[in-house]
């Protein structure tokens, strides 16, 4: 059993399955996006025991002893998490493909630094690629998220 978004879910059907593919194909949690599949783009970022990790760089079977949180589990049903609200307000997304990964990377950043410096923000989002909106509005959204999280 693997705990995903607070629910016990069945074990992956194959040990070769990446966590990202398990979430998408076996659980239907398609909010975890898959871009490069080798750890460069950051789109597949999920929280493992509250810390952001790349789900394409883990086997699903390795999540067995851990709590996985995907973008679907970040806020309650029908609600926006403060980070999602901040991304919305600051126009920090355009096509939205990279957004779940960014939101979860920022969740990890804000868990570690409640009021991150500009440098810490840049470092915190440095592992995620955005190809349309650009990073200025995403930086603004991180600052806005710290206000909304108070």
């Amino acid at each position, binding site marked *: 059993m693997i705990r995903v978004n607070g629910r016990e879910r069945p074990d992956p059907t*194959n*040990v*070769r*399955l*990446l966590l990202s*593919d398990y979430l998408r194909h076996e659980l239907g949690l398609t909010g975890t996006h898959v871009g490069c*599949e*080798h*750890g460069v783009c*950051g789109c597949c*970022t999920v929280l*493992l025991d509250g*810390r*952001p*990790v*790349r789900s*394409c*760089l*883990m*086997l699903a*079977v*390795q999540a067995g*002893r851990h709590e996985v949180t995907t973008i679907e589990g970040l806020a309650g049903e029908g609600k926006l998490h403060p980070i999602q609200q901040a991304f919305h307000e600051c126009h920090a997304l355009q096509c939205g493909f990279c957004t779940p990964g960014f939101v979860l*990377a920022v969740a*990890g*950043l804000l868990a570690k630094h409640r009021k991150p410096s500009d440098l810490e923000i*840049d*470092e*915190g989002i*440095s*592992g*995620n690629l955005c190809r349309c909106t650009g990073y200025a509005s995403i930086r603004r959204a991180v600052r806005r998220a710290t206000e909304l999280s108070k």
Partner: protein
Amino acid sequence: MKPPPFDYHAPSTTAEALDLLAKLEDAKVLAGGQSLIPLLNFRLASPAHLVDINGIAELEYVRERDGGVAIGAGARQSDVEDDKTVRRICPLLAEALGQVAHPVIRNRGTVCGSLAHADPAAELPAVLLAAGGEVVARSVHGERRITAQDFFKGVFDSALEADELLVEAWFPATTGPFALVEESRRHGDFALAGAARSGDRLALFGVAPTPVLADPTDPSHGLSPSGDLEATPAFRLHLVEVLVRRAFAS
């Protein structure tokens, strides 16, 4: 399915892991997986067996030992980076960890895994070499300590035997000025060239098949770095001169 077929083993003790490594043909140790899983995804690696050491709780430690810091094979880079003992005794290591890939990668990657992977452009092997550290390799036949100078053999090649597990890395205390400087095309990428300074000792990375010790007054002496799409050999030699000047200016 991205990774090629393999049999998966998840021992819960070091002894169990060593038994598996002694018994299995063509086994690869899976630690943080931040290099190995991409290699599997690209099918550049296709080991018959994966021995996953992430479930071995006894390897998850950072402790003071012999005036330095001992880091277990299970310790994550981000935990080591934030560790108070590491920051106090071996600030060079903490400084270097802040430049390893990105925070999200460091949440999963391990210090010992990076050393065992022996990427010539990675920061941690150069830090171990500059600091004069060593690794502890264990197999069912016993344990041996290998100095950094003897450990790195070539590109992705170390002195570890197939049945050995790198159970611990030991970094001596940082004494005197220290620096970790590197140049890469994008923040967080592997360096085109880099330098680790620990007191008067200097190790370079990204410019040879292994990290190399160098003379701070003539750092590029004897070097013949390779060229690729990102940097010519001459540019790498130029970077070495500039980076070493910066490392020793502080």
